[in-house]
């Protein structure tokens, strides 16, 4: 089906055309409904999880920022936020630095056991989290990493690595080798070539891989519950406890904040993708 209805379309085609669009609209609504629901609820003036009659009547007093205030003043949530902010960047740094090196290595033309190596590196994304969590729980306990900051960081870095590998490898596949050859033939030494030519070109892939790794750690709850202890209680963990224990709308306020962060990160990725395409578009061949 084309995106415009031709003027000669039959009634059947017309019904089909509009019916299909309505169907797609409903599916998009299904995709967005949960996000659209929690944002207004997070401004609920009462400690309930449902829309109050006042909210439906758009009475100003039915709305309040008190759950946001609670998030920013409650020590538990603040500690959780601090933990998340301490853990995610460190895990991202590890995943990105190791992952980028390995992706460059994998993009070389003669790599022995490339398939096996690739399979191992992608596996943290494939192996069910509960299994990774269980294995790490037992193993990290044995070596004394369970319940430590570094235990959680290492675990999260491992989970983030597939994303870095995938995105960086993807940019390297589209990488035009003649650029580095040109740099070399113009007298640049290999190090200069890497930092001046290759790095700027794969940087968008590195950054978006890093963002994925970051969000993986920032959003991860299963592994941290098993590998971490009270000292590493992160935001998602606190939310998980909250959902099972006291269901307070503060969770919805946190959720809204996280959605806003997602939108920001998503915009960054989109901008990077465009920039990457533009840069590649400039390269000859």
């Amino acid at each position: 089906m084309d995106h415009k209805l031709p003027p000669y379309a039959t009634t059947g085609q017309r019904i089909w055309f509009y019916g299909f669009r309505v169907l797609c609209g409903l599916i998009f609504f299904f995709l967005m409904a949960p996000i659209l629901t929690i944002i207004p609820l997070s401004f609920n003036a009462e400690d309930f999880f449902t829309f109050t009659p006042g909210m439906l009547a758009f009475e100003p007093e039915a709305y309040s920022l008190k759950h946001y205030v609670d998030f920013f003043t409650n020590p538990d949530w603040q500690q959780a936020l601090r933990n998340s902010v301490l853990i995610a960047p460190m895990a991202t740094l590890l995943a990105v630095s190791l992952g980028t090196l390995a992706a460059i290595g994998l993009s070389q033309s003669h790599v022995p056991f490339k398939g096996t190596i690739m399979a191992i590196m992608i596996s943290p994304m494939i192996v069910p989290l509960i299994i990774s969590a269980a294995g790490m729980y037992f193993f990290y306990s044995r070596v004394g990493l369970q319940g430590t900051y570094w235990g959680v960081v290492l675990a999260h870095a491992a989970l983030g690595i597939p994303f870095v590998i995938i995105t960086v490898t993807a940019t390297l596949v589209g990488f035009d080798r003649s650029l580095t050859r040109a740099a070399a033939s113009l007298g640049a030494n290999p190090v200069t070539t890497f930092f001046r030519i290759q790095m700027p070109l794969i940087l968008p892939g590195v950054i978006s891989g890093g963002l994925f790794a970051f969000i993986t750690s920032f959003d991860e709850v299963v592994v941290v519950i098993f590998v971490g202890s009270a000292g590493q209680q992160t935001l998602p963990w606190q939310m998980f406890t909250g959902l099972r224990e006291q269901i307070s709308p503060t969770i919805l306020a946190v959720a809204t904040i996280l959605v806003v962060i997602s939108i920001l990160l998503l915009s960054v990725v989109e901008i990077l993708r465009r920039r990457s395409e533009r840069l590649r578009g400039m390269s000859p061949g």
Partner: protein
Amino acid sequence: MTDAATGNIGRAAADARRAEAEQTGPVMAADGRPLKQSLNRALRAQKLRALALIAPLLLFLLVTFVAPIFDMLFRSVENQITSETLPRTVVALEDWDAQDLPSQDTFAALAYDFMEAAERRIHTRLGSRLNYETTGISSTFRRSGRGIDDLGETQAEQFIDLNPQWEDPAAWVALMAAPDWIAAQADWAARADAADAADRPFDEAEPAFRLAGGIAATLPETADAYRSFATTIQQEDEDSPTAEEPWNTVYLALYRDLLRQPAATIAAYDGPQAALVQEAAGVAAGFEATDLPAFFIDMDDGWGDLKTWETIQTFSDPYTAGYFLAALDLQLTPQGIEMQPEEQQIYLMLFWRTIVLSLTIMGLCVLLGYPIAYLLSNLPMRTSNLLLILVLLPFWTSLLVRTSAWKVLLQQQGVINDTLVWLGLVADDARLALINNQVGTVIAMTHILLPFMILPLYSVMKTIPPSYVRAAKSLGATNSTAFWRVYFPQSVPGIGAGCILVFILSIGYYITPELVGGRTGIFISNRIAFHISDSLNWGLAAALGSILLILVLALYWLYDRLVGIDNVKLG
């Protein structure tokens, strides 16, 4: 740098091959070596460089991720606990035929094992382990742990009545310990006293107990029981054998030795305390005996039950398939492998349910994802990019956020039910049960996994040239024929990739079923988590995890074959 080199070498290699074909003599590189050799070296160096770049990450993953997984696999078959906790009993049971209760000797072995295990407080761990196989063993072990130190008291009293020396720790040490240990211990004690007198800290441990050379030949069980006593109190309580009266089981061992060893062996003993031993040997036959099986059965009936012994015998190997069998609703009995009693069968059903629900979710994802992907790939770039954000935003939103949103939406007093009641579609007292059951799990997980279906589908559909469908239509195909015969077959690889991805992610889900699944909507993962943190049956958790892992890896392999892991795209 590397790429420039690669390119040059690649081209050079091709040139060289051509050159080689034309000329007969070896071609020389600029440095005068044969070109072939030089090229091979360059290739090797290149491989090494690539590996050097990959190695740090590979090592990192091996340690932080692969090793834990293997550790878990190992745990699912590991069973050293029986032979470590009851070493003598396991040996004694090797030839037991499971017809009658084991012999007095086996009970004696159990007595020595159990005494040490109880002192080390590890007997209940074995009890819990064996209780997974046969109910009631846990309590048998726990109760026996409380009564075991009375076993041999009768003998102890009689020996002490005979000669009070038997009560003296020093007399026992003189009889049992190696002379050089006695000297080393005395030296250690002197240093401890000196430190104490000078108010200095002294944290050196007492030298580890060593048995005298000849005693085991004369009094084998006593020597064994005494060594068990001495090392246990040294390690567990930081006590010294020189200051503690032996356990009653040591007296029991002594009594048994004196009765069972040939009189000549005892008479021939001329080591330290020979007179004491020979005095006792003369009268031990007249001592009051203890019926060991009766004593144990008196502590707990379980010891009179052949099933208890069979279980110990069956699970005495250091490795066991027991957990894997349990994970498949089977059990290992002395008669072989049998099904679990019906009211305890749960895992096959849970695996089956996990697969069925995952297939349902996968199917729904295809149904909902296909139209969206189709629409996106047929709209102009600008519009489709905008709509794509509606797909990516949920994808990028925290899993917990989305799950909690579904909780809000699906509750009986939640948004959906409220809306339905308001619209008059549902009566207020007949609100739909959309959460805490399979419906909740399926709805929430379909939503969460839908982007994983749309994105691969979209990337495949974008590559299908619209001209094919147009060509079909111009040749007279109807819209539906053109779609089903021309467009759809070309989109099948996208469906395959999306399906496998969604299915793989779905069968391992834990958080969402836990929060919205209730009683019937939970997956096998929830059971694994339960066994890790609640029931503490880690072996079973590991076995269930291993089976799930094998399932996922098989699918992963299939995905790699069909799609190629290099082709996974994100966003």
